[in-house]
């Protein structure tokens, strides 16, 4: 382990390091260390390329050791092909496909090598089964509800689903290419638009990265207000999704009540910064809007009141026999599958895997105030709903407490331009799980690479696993219990 430690650069979440200090290892050593860390309980946080010397690709890995609260950075130069690590470390499967698509590095021996965002159905056929009465069901990209586009291909026998392949990329807008060479006047708005339902989460990750690169720390009052905004975003999405889950199982009281109560949390964000999704509130250097003591107190009361109604509404939901009948055992993901695929957020916690960036890699206000980690056991739709309802309670408590005891002082300080030749990793526990931004500056202080990873990048594989041996009619319910981001994945 000491030999490994010496060959990996250790860093904290939200810390900037010299980009040149990241060890450059021979490929075999890089792969050996990565495989060792991942099989010893580590997780891939980021795994990305950028142009290296001699036409090669400089591959950088950021691996998390949650128990130690540390990140390990290492890099290597790769050519046109590398041996695939996916058979040994399945959590890398999509990262290797992404590297193949973005930089042409072919992982030899990858079990299912296709592009991630530009899949051509004729050139990249779906996994197909053959046999009497086995049939295929194709859904999307345009779906029946008001949701984002994606394609789902089921291999079925009657109602029974053997396999689900998820093909995304319809939402690809070229976010990373637009970020290249920044920061510029577009950067903040772009990052608020990675996933519109996670505007606060993604922008908070960006703020942490930008502030680390500039070497500034925001005032305590700003950090607290950011924490409040992040928890309100979590509340709005969890409450809305629990309502939608109730709708999917035909339990309409909770569907109606939660649909309306979700607005209380969105409106609370709008009271902080004018926009229901928290756009325009955060900025590198702090927040753009302050709250007076009276306003903060009123907001705390409002959050408490709304949570009280959410609690009553969810009690109806969890007490109902028909709800339990539809959610118990539906869409189960085993703890083993969760660990091997590297799932994050409530999807992982529902499988009994207690990982949460707010605790494991605390940054900002979470260094001083803690949110207890909620876990479930059964890994099914019920467990995901339960975990999210517990998180609502804890987020509401946290937000109200922060609002009632905001530290005094300014809420915004100037944030200098990024220092040249630095690399910063920023992790934030968004409502779907771990958001990771890695910013690397060149000699001119501009972004030579800005890597964005939405938690959905890990968790779509979890949804595919959840559908195995289920009824195809339970797909909407399973899908909603994860409610993953298409645009966050597609970038």
């Amino acid at each position: 382990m000491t030999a490994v430690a010496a060959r990996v650069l250790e860093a904290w979440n939200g810390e900037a390091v010299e980009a040149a200090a990241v060890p450059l290892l021979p490929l075999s050593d890089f792969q050996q260390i990565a495989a060792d860390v991942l099989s010893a309980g580590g997780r891939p946080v980021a795994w990305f390329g950028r142009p290296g010397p001699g036409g090669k690709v400089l591959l950088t890995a950021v691996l998390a050791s949650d128990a130690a609260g540390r990140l390990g950075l290492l890099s290597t130069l790769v050519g046109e092909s590398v041996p695939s690590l996916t058979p040994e470390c399945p959590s890398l499967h999509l990262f290797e496909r992404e590297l193949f698509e973005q930089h042409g590095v072919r992982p030899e021996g990858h079990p299912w090598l296709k592009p991630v965002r530009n899949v051509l159905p004729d050139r990249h056929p779906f996994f197909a089964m053959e046999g009497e009465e086995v049939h295929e069901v194709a859904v999307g990209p345009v779906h029946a509800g008001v949701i984002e586009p994606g394609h789902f291909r089921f291999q079925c026998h009657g109602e029974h689903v053997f396999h689900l392949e998820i093909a995304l990329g319809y939402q690809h807008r070229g976010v990373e290419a637009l970020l290249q060479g920044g920061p510029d006047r577009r950067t903040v708005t772009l990052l608020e638009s990675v996933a519109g339902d996670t505007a606060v989460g993604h922008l908070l990750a960006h703020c942490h990265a930008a502030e680390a690169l500039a070497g500034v720390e925001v005032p305590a009052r700003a950090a607290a207000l950011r924490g409040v905004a992040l928890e309100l975003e979590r509340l709005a999405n969890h409450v809305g999704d629990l309502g939608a889950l109730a709708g999917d199982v035909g339990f309409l009281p909770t569907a109606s009540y939660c649909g309306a109560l979700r607005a209380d949390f969105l409106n609370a964000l709008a009271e902080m910064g004018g926009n229901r999704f928290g756009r325009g509130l955060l900025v590198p250097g702090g927040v753009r809007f302050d709250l007076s003591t009276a306003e903060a107190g009123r907001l705390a009361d409002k959050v408490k009141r709304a949570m009280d109604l959410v609690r009553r509404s969810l009690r109806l939901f969890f007490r109902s026999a028909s709800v339990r009948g539809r959610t118990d055992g539906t869409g189960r993901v085993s703890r083993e599958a969760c660990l091997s695929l590297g799932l994050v957020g409530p999807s992982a916690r529902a499988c009994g895997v207690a990982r949460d960036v707010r605790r494991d890699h605390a940054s900002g206000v979470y260094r001083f105030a803690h949110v207890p980690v909620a876990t479930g056991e059964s890994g099914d739709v019920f467990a995901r709903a339960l975990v999210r309802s517990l998180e609502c309670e804890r987020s509401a408590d946290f937000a109200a407490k922060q609002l009632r005891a905001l530290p005094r002082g300014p809420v915004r300080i100037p944030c200098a331009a990024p220092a040249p030749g630095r690399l910063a990793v920023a992790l934030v526990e968004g409502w779907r799980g771990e958001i990771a931004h890695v910013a690397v500056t060149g000699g001119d202080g501009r972004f030579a690479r800005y890597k964005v990873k939405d938690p959905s990048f890990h968790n779509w594989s979890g949804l595919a696993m959840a559908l195995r041996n289920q009824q195809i009619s339970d797909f909407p319910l399973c899908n909603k219990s994860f409610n993953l981001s298409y645009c966050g994945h597609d970038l």
Partner: protein
Amino acid sequence: MIDDLLHILRLRARLGRQTVAWPDGPARLPERFRGRPVLAPSRCRDGCRACADACPTEAILDPGRAGMRVDLGRCVFCTECTEACPEEAIRYTRDHRLSASSRDGLLCAGDEPRLARALDERMQRLFGRSLRLRQVSAAGCNGCEAELNAIGNIQFDAARFGIQFVASPRHADGIAVTGPVSENMRAALLKTWEAVPAPRLVVAVGACACSGGVFRGSPVQADGLPGVPEIPVDLWIAGCPPHPLTVLDGLLRMLGCLEGEGPGEAPTGVVDPGPGAARPVRAG
């Protein structure tokens, strides 16, 4: 069982009527809500373009001159321009009405309301009392999609006006498009539109669908519906994302169900942004 039912009814009574008072009563929006911007170019220093240089989406045209305009189809309603302006020549009102019947109608000078025109009589007769829309997210970030979902909830309750989203384009009277239209969604968008029986309506929702928004110029998208000339647009709704009331205002005006200035509070003119705290805090 009876016990559960009683719980449901008790909570129902406690929650009371949830539907907003608008359009019979005023539109109640948060104090810090950023609606239609107003410009006062007479205050600008000659040749100053601080607002335009700070804008993430190049939404400010002819800055610092008498003909200065904001393209609401590009505006993401952030605070960069108001922070950058040394003269307070650009400010936001709380006017949520941000729709137009043509793309040029979203170009906004001075202090003029943006009110979409009603359809012609035949179309009003067809759709005025019942409008079924198919939503197509063409690389929308789920902000506009979330607000379109919200117009169907019990608070905004679009169904009381006969407006609903349907699952199939075959059942629809038109489509509501969000997002800048990624290249990967262009074919699916066209097919969905073609599947809607004529006469059909097209509504562009949000800055991305109107102009590409913050993604404008990215080579893997079309800069919104203006980049898809096959699909004619009947209603343009600005915002990032548009507030549910902004969406409803646009749809109801298009259908001829809302006319004139009202209803709403302080329909035109700068609404006082309120106590000092409501203005953005500048760094340092």
